[in-house]
């Protein structure tokens, strides 16, 4: 496989994973070596970030960087790299401890995230307290254009299985299923051969049908085991953990060579690219460098897509860094780019419902979204939408359903948050009012008691009080006169 030469500048985001961003541990002017930790895992849900090349930190700035389903602002370490002859052969070595909990810590400190796309911290997934019976290694590339996992399995089959063995130990799982799409015959052969050599009888290799989105976590669990992951739950809730084959390879690299996660394989493809290929690129390398490495764009190039053609999104320019979740960059040629037809009203044909792999009713969801009916969105299972884009493709009215549903998800989340604050405020306000009423009632009671005591008392005390008041008045009068 082709390796991208070290670019002159690296932009390494602190937020490359699901969860809180890493906290920078270097500052402007520092010299860093390849593999040095430059961002610390801020809390257990976070992972560390490493320098993917040696050089000098020229700034820690806020930049717009690619994330899961769009661009986000993140703190980035900007590194001006040393000349190629001063770049080390391999990154700085990390320790691989014997103890299991220390291993999980080491995985977090090595910056391991799922390399399939969602970038979920690997340590969190492997360190779950729930019992895991089956480990699924996902080699069923989700999208038609992407082939980085295919390439990896062909070239590093043994390493992938080694990673699987480490995961099995960490999870205490009994079985590992390596799922590979049926049309990837070379990857299937390579992995099967490697499995035979290793002779680990816990590992089985299964070919799954090539139907998009076969590589979606939930869809894969269902097609392999025939069990559905319940709505709002994770595969671990039914005793299954899914890991991408790339993650397994990265883990094996960590355990055998002490390599932190500093590179990843990116599929560079599309009719708009002169030499489409899979490239191993350092994290933080600019996408423009990758495009240049692949011969540059053709005059026909129309649109740049980050991620697959189904779930990816258009990039406004090529001035963005490769992150841990960047699996694919497509330069669409004008014949491939579908800029979306004119949108027509929904004719309620139900095509979207039959296409939906999560068995949702996109047209009903769309109606609920238009009317801001949040309860309906919830009951219709908006959050189970995996944003695969199938409904968009089949819709005869060209309604961009996926992007609508995505917007609705954000709206639903903020509605939920507001609702929670409002409900809490309502109870707190009720308690506040009750407390004030109680205080007022107590004050009233005290006053009535005092007056009652005064009224019911004998006259001698009353005269004494009146005399005291009179004395006080005279004294005040005298003082006023003196002034």
């Amino acid at each position: 496989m082709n390796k991208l030469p070290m670019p002159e500048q690296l932009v390494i985001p602190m937020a490359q994973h699901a969860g809180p961003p890493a906290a920078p541990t270097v500052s402007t002017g520092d010299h860093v070596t390849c593999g040095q930790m430059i961002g610390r895992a801020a809390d257990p849900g976070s992972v560390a970030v490493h320098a993917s090349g040696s050089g000098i930190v020229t700034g820690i700035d806020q930049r717009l960087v690619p994330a899961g389903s769009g661009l986000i602002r993140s703190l980035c370490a900007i590194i001006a790299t040393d000349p190629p002859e001063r770049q080390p052969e391999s990154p700085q070595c990390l320790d691989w401890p014997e103890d299991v909990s220390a291993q999980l810590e080491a995985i977090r400190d090595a910056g391991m995230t799922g390399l399939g796309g969602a970038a979920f911290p690997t340590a969190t997934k492997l360190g779950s307290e729930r019992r895991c019976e089956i480990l699924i290694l996902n080699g069923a590339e989700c999208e038609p254009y992407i082939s980085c996992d295919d390439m990896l399995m062909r070239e590093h089959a043994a390493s992938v299985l080694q990673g699987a063995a480490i995961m099995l130990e960490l999870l205490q799982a009994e079985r590992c299923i390596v799922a590979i799409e049926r049309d990837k015959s070379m990857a299937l052969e390579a992995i099967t051969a490697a499995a035979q050599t290793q002779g680990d009888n816990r590992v089985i290799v299964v070919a799954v049908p090539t139907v998009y989105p076969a590589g979606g976590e939930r869809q894969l669990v269902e097609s392999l085991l025939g069990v559905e992951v319940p709505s709002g739950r994770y595969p671990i809730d039914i005793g299954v953990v899914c890991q991408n084959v790339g993650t397994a390879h990265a883990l094996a690299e960590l355990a055998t060579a002490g390599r932190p996660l500093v590179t990843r394989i990116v599929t560079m493809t599309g009719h708009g690219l002169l030499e489409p290929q899979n490239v191993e690129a350092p994290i933080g390398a600019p996408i423009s460098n990758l495009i240049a490495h692949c011969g540059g764009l053709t005059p026909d190039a129309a649109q740049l897509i980050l991620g697959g053609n189904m779930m990816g999104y258009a990039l406004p320019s090529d001035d963005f860094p490769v992150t841990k979740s960047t699996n694919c960059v497509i330069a669409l040629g004008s014949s491939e780019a579908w800029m979306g037809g004119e949108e027509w009203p929904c004719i309620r044909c139900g095509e979207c419902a039959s296409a939906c792999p999560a068995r949702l009713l996109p047209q009903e969801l769309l109606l609920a979204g238009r009317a801001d009916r949040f309860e309906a969105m919830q009951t219709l299972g908006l959050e189970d939408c995996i944003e695969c884009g199938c409904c968009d493709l089949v819709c005869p009215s060209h309604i961009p359903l996926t992007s609508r549903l995505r917007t609705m998800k954000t709206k639903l989340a903020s509605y939920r948050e507001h609702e929670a604050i409002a409900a809490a405020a309502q109870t707190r306000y009720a308690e506040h009012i009750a407390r004030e009423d109680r205080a007022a009632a107590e004050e009233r009671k005290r006053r009535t008691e005092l007056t009652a005591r005064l009224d019911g008392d004998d006259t001698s005390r009353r005269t004494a009080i009146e005399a005291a008041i009179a004395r006080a008045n005279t004294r005040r009068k005298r003082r006023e006169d003196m002034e």
Partner: protein
Amino acid sequence: MTGALVLTLITVALAMLLLLGDRLFADRGDSAVERIERVLPRIQCGQCGYAGCRPYAQALVDGSAAVNLCPPGGMTTVRKLAELLGEEPQPIPQELGHASLDRVAKIDETLCIGCNLCSRACPVDAILGLPQLMHTIIAAECTGCELCLAPCPVDCIHMAARRA
């Protein structure tokens, strides 16, 4: 004769059953006031001129208040209220205020003199502090009602975005 008696008995028995069912499965649905209150943002800012969201909801049900008095709810709330009460949605008068759930109050802790006035004004007890000592706002409990701004004698409270 027997027929009539049997029929009457059956009717009476069925009537009893119906009554029983009605008692057992009574519609414990919320009152109109509660339903209206749920449409409101419930941040208790009082910018509508009523003491809180429930009093405003009560006034709406009584028909003595207009539907366009809730600045934090915005036009979404106005439209929902108008729909529920069968009225025409009207724009919200600017002078009512602009409380919003998207903001929280922040105390400049170097200026706070510990007078305790803000704490007493807060409808949701989100302000913490002892007399003569620095006060602070529990951001997670703050509803952005702005009721603490006016009482502060040193103007050390300002509104900030809920998410920085």
